[in-house]
């Protein structure tokens, strides 16, 4: 924090991924305006993929120059780089998913890809934010673009409803977040995460009021990551939105919101640890139980995955309740493997759903094993990973989270989490039973082999899940070394 407020070149370098993505988003919209009516708009998806790849390289370049930028507004560290990389990969996989989906729905436009890139910009900002105002801005950039994506097929009633619910509850959550920020600002005189920590460490301000402000912030984040009792929107939104968008919403914004939730609570509010840990403990417990039991009752696959995503948010909260560096590293690993397996599962579902998403019941998956053995096997990998079967990323995610919880002596939370994983196996196995042990129905009659782009997305997610499950060491050591920055 010097007197020199003019940004230096190094500031722009550390902010490069966001700049690249914004430029590509704008270029895509311009290109679309210049295109002839008959042009194939799917090529704009290719531009988006290229933009994401360039941003990924920019992320690596920025990572080689770590430090704060723009007077401490953002900070490029291992943790931020990890989550930037994750949301960029999520964005790329979702572009690949969307290409064939939008062709099928005859709504291929550039604005879809532009909005996707803008949403990823917001998530990148969240990953590196070091000031509560940047947290707010990043969350809003990500959310406002996602609201439109959720209602992208604007003549579809389910899309409308999904967008409305996401928008109303998302804005409601933002208001709580902002109110918390205002109080933290009033109490500590700062919105910078590190400075807030310094002031709270001195113990000058009332810890009760600071604790209440932290709780308001937690409510704001809890809505975004669908933690019980703030989860009501999640199943409706994931069921109603287009499948590739549901995949995106359940992976990208969620990972970014968790990233900043961990950063805020582990950096700024560590001194208030004793106050918030039981709040997180209780929410983690409720989230796992409510998510899993509600998922048991579902017949719609998308809605079931919506509830399962609530349950998975509960497991990540267990890692926050552990409140340790091991916990942070475990959550990072968990979010990465969860993003891959969930996007993969949604990709297969969007493939089977057919035009207007007619086939989204669990029974509609019947006979997939006979009709498309390869796709069925890949779906099985995703489902086994969601259950947490060894040799998949999901297994090590759960393993590290519960290990972190045990290290912090959260025995009951671990026991209940393990019981929940066993219950979850029941509804995930319904998918396996449907694809391998049931007779094909109407949904299989006109099933063409998946398009190349979709096949790449599914294969890439499956490979990612398997690599994380067989060689978890590389990613975990990356996560552990970046978690070491939090003291």
């Amino acid at each position, binding site marked *: 924090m010097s007197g020199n407020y003019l940004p230096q070149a190094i500031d722009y370098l550390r902010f490069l991924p966001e700049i690249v993505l914004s430029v590509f988003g704008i270029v895509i919209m311009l290109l679309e305006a210049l295109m002839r009516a008959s042009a194939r708009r799917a090529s704009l998806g290719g531009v988006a993929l290229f933009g994401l790849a360039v941003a990924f390289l920019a992320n690596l370049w920025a990572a080689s120059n770590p430090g704060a930028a723009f007077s401490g507004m953002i900070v490029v560290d291992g943790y931020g780089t990890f989550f930037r990389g994750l949301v960029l990969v999520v964005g790329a996989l979702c572009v690949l998913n969307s290409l064939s989906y939008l062709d099928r729905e005859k709504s291929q436009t550039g604005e879809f890809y532009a909005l996707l890139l803008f949403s990823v910009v917001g998530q990148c900002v969240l990953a590196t934010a070091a000031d509560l*105002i940047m947290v*707010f*801005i990043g969350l*809003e950039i990500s959310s*406002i673009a996602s*609201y*439109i994506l959720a*209602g992208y097929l*604007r*003549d579809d*009633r*389910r899309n*409308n*409803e999904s*967008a*409305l*619910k996401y*928008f*109303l509850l998302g*804005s*409601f959550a*933002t*208001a709580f977040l*902002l*109110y918390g*920020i*205002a*109080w933290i*600002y*009033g109490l500590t*005189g700062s*919105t910078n995460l590190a400075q807030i920590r310094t002031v709270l460490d001195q113990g000058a301000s009332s810890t009760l009021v600071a604790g209440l402000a932290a709780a308001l912030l937690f409510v704001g984040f809890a809505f975004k990551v669908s933690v019980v009792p703030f989860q009501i929107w999640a*199943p*409706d939104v994931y*069921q*109603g939105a287009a499948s590739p968008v549901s995949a995106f919403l359940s992976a990208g914004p969620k990972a970014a919101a968790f990233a900043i939730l961990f950063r805020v609570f582990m950096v700024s509010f560590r001194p208030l640890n004793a106050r918030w840990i039981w709040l997180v403990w209780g929410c983690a417990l409720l989230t796992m139980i409510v998510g899993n039991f509600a998922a048991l*009752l*579902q017949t719609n696959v998308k*809605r079931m995955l919506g509830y399962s995503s609530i349950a998975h948010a509960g497991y990540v909260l267990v890692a926050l309740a552990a409140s340790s560096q091991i916990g942070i590293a475990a959550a990072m690993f968990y979010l990465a493997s969860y993003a891959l397996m969930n996007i993969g599962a949604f990709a297969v579902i969007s493939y089977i759903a057919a035009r207007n998403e007619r086939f989204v019941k669990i029974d509609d998956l019947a006979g997939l094993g006979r009709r498309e053995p390869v796709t069925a096997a890949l779906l099985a990998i995703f489902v086994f990973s969601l259950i947490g079967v060894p040799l998949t990323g999901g297994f090590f995610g759960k393993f590290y989270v519960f290990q972190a919880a045990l290290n912090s002596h959260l025995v009951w939370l671990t026991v209940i989490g393990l019981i929940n994983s066993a219950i979850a196996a029941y509804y995930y196995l319904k998918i396996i039973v449907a694809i391998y042990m049931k007779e094909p129905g109407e949904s299989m009659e006109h099933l063409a082999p998946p398009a190349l782009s979709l096949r790449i997305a599914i294969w890439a997610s499956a490979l990612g899940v398997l690599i994380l499950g067989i060689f978890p060491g590389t990613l975990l050591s990356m996560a552990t070394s970046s978690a070491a920055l939090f003291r």
Partner: protein
Amino acid sequence: MPHVPLSWYLILSAILFALGAAGFVYRKSVITVFMSIELMLNAVNLSFVAFSYQLHRIDGHIYSFFVMVVAAAEAAVGLAIILTIFKNRGTLQIDEVDSMKL
């Protein structure tokens, strides 16, 4: 001019925020629900400006501008979403937008 203490502003802000939250939960028209959210955001702005004045610093004032800009962007998107709902369903009653119950 008599000096208005900080706590008055904060109490007013808390009342406005609570009114907005109550409106969000209990009102049935989408438009009113949306207006309740705007009320909550403005309550936050009042807190920001009051704290900023108390701390003799300028950044809280600037934050309230950030909030206004974002609220405007949110309003643009939100009203567009509400418009598509009305076009496809002919209603703005929140209870009637429920095609995805269990």
